[in-house]
């Protein structure tokens, strides 16, 4: 799945003309689709520059390739919410270890990303 950035907003929901995370018109591979416990739809993509992987609101994108990668499973959150993600990434605490830069989490991330990108290059 791939999505084109069509809108920039900051963490407060205010429109932006520029962002250090995304570029208007740029197409990103969608690594996860999430509905959080506030019923917001979010896409996880690899942001621009050195900021890295993050979640962005669905309304900031237009889906340009809806292909669902084989690597995705449906994961239901214990506190509510839902995700299309890989099995490894759906394990409790995975993203904490990834953002704390644990090497095993980084390897799992690279492997999952490769499978998702290869499914829709």
């Amino acid at each position, binding site marked *: 799945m791939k999505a084109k950035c069509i809108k920039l907003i900051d963490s*407060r929901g205010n429109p932006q003309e520029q962002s250090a995370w995304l570029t208007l018109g740029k197409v990103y591979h969608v690594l996860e689709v999430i509905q959080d416990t506030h019923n917001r739809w979010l896409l996880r993509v690899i*942001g621009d520059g*050195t900021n890295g992987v993050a979640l*962005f609101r669905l309304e900031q994108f237009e889906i340009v390739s809806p292909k669902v990668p084989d690597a995705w499973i449906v994961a239901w959150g214990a506190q509510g919410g839902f995700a299309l993600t890989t099995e490894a990434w759906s394990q409790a605490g995975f993203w904490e270890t990834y*953002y704390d830069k644990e090497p095993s989490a980084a390897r799992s991330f690279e492997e999952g990303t490769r499978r998702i990108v290869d499914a829709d290059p």
Partner: protein
Amino acid sequence: MADSAATVAMSDHPGVAWVAALAPIPVAFIPEVSFAVDAAATADSAVNVANGARLSQQLALESANSAFTATGELSEGAISGANEIIPAGQLGNPAIPQGLSKFATDTFASPSGPFQVHFYMNAVSGAVYYGLDYKVIFNSP
């Protein structure tokens, strides 16, 4: 004598003492002005390099400080430029109050290297929570 004065002046100049070994060569052929300028340029370059390094450190420190308020909380700019990284409902730490998401700021420069700050915020209300796991993460592993 002008020639002797010129030779002494060059010989005394730091870094060009070897000019004295050129005694058989008429002093008129020794590019006195050129040496003086080159030596001055070298000194200026060294000062510029030192100033450049100091300025770079100062800018990195100012960038790092811009992420925080005087009380150690995040600046409004750092918060508005941040992005969600773990959504509400998917946090592994049960001590984090429900409804909060984990956020990462934009990358800031610092004298110790680029970093981001991780913090919790209610993505709907915008309320920031500093009670747990508020930390700086350097971009380099």
